[in-house]
């Protein structure tokens, strides 16, 4: 047996289709997940024990269960309430749920890491909590958010492979199809691995640019300590 990439010639459109769906599903899950994550984080910061308990349960539930089980629970659970949705939609929602728990923790931690006086001074002058968040807190945490959010987005994009098990025709699903037709698993999975690698590299580069842009606005304003800067940033430094 020898390595023969030629077997892929007939099947590359299928793999591209799968890759495109992986990108779409991940992008949608990122958007939905981030919005949900911000909402959960903000609720968690409302004073009182109830909001913290509810959001804590939400986050812990999603974090303590393997992603594939979350997918199965949602996919096989919905029909119990008579809801039948396309697998791709269910898969995207499951992925968004999963990511939202981690995004929520990232956002919450970033807000809590900001000195309390920042929010308080905005409130004391008469800003509403929403205005204080928008004008004072949000601009200061943007840069802190980028690196951990990127890590989570990469993890989530890779976890989307699990959706193949509920017949979402994304990249992994298509690779299994191609592999079944060609009986050339190594060639197929090597090709698929490269495609995943490429998608991840693009996300990482986009994030690096984003961090630089947000950073340029902020660098003048907030100087972090140099060690923290080195380890919290994805932008490569010279020294």
């Amino acid at each position: 047996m020898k390595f023969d990439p030629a077997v892929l010639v007939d099947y590359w459109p299928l793999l591209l289709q799968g890759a495109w769906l992986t990108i779409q599903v991940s992008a949608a899950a990122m958007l939905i997940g981030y919005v949900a994550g911000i909402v959960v984080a903000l609720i968690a910061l409302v004073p009182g024990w109830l909001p913290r308990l509810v959001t804590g349960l939400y986050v812990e539930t999603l974090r303590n269960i393997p992603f594939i089980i979350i997918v199965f629970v949602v996919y096989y659970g919905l029909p119990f309430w008579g809801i039948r949705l396309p697998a791709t939609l269910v898969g995207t929602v499951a992925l968004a749920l999963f990511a939202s728990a981690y995004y929520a923790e990232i956002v919450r931690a970033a807000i809590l890491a900001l000195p309390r006086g920042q929010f308080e001074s905005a409130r004391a002058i008469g800003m509403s909590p929403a205005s204080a968040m928008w004008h004072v807190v949000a601009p200061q945490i943007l840069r802190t958010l980028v690196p951990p959010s990127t890590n989570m987005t990469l993890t989530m994009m890779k976890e989307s492979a699990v959706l193949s098990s509920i017949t979402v025709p994304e990249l992994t699903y298509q690779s299994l199809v191609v592999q079944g037709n060609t009986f050339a698993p190594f060639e197929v999975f090597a090709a698929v691995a490269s495609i995943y690698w490429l998608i991840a590299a693009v996300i990482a580069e986009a994030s690096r640019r984003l961090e630089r842009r947000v950073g340029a606005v902020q660098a003048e304003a907030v100087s972090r300590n140099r060690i923290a800067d080195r380890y919290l940033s994805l932008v490569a430094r010279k020294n």
Partner: protein
Amino acid sequence: MSATPVLRVSNLTKRFHGVTALDQVYLDVHAGQIVALIGPSGCGKSTLLRCLTWLEQPDDGFIEVAGKPLGRELMPGGVVRRQSRRQIDAMRPQVGIVFQQFHLWPHMTALENVVRSQIVVLGRPRLEATERGVELLTRLGLADRMDRHPHALSGGQKQRVAIARALAMDPALMLFDEPTSALDPELVGEVLAVLRSLAETGMTMLVVTHEIGFAASLADRIAFMDHGRILEEGPARDIMAAPKEPRLQNFLDLVRFDRRIGRTTANPTE
């Protein structure tokens, strides 16, 4: 003296997990007065300021600013009603506070620090807000520092930006939390000058400090606080010359002794 005080605090009580931080505090500050609130660490001075801005919710008692209730109000028939968040936020610009650590917003220039809340809270047009900001910062000697971010300002300059930020809301009352403690000792004279110039404009002020010399040279009246209660309150001269309350006598003796052996920061009046 006008009948309605700018600040009227009555029966204000605050407990933290069973520890009483404020114990039935009564305090009136009249228009144009500077009242210094002195007392040992942990006596409740800062808690009082936090309650006056409703950053801390007092458990009991009432606050009135320029005759209007803040936070909690007495309804006809003796019912006590908690104000809504909107009502409280609407009252907040009336009480300007300058925090010990200033809490300027580091992502904005000095001018934007002063301008932004005018736009967001008072709904002023940006042009008008900017004009007001420039005027205030110029008055406070920061005309050439307006485009700087807070990290590029000295401690004293930061404090003056924080003062301008609060003044821009046209408050009825200004609160200062330990205005000398975050600055170098040699700047105490500068702080004193800034607060005095504010006083000349007729601003009413409540200044929390533990520096007796600073309080004595600035304030019209001094209130002494210990264990969450205001134990003695009166004209600054009387309080310094003839304290009646034994704990205040003790406190003054201690501080004066500290100063003789050079333990507290320099006093500009000496």
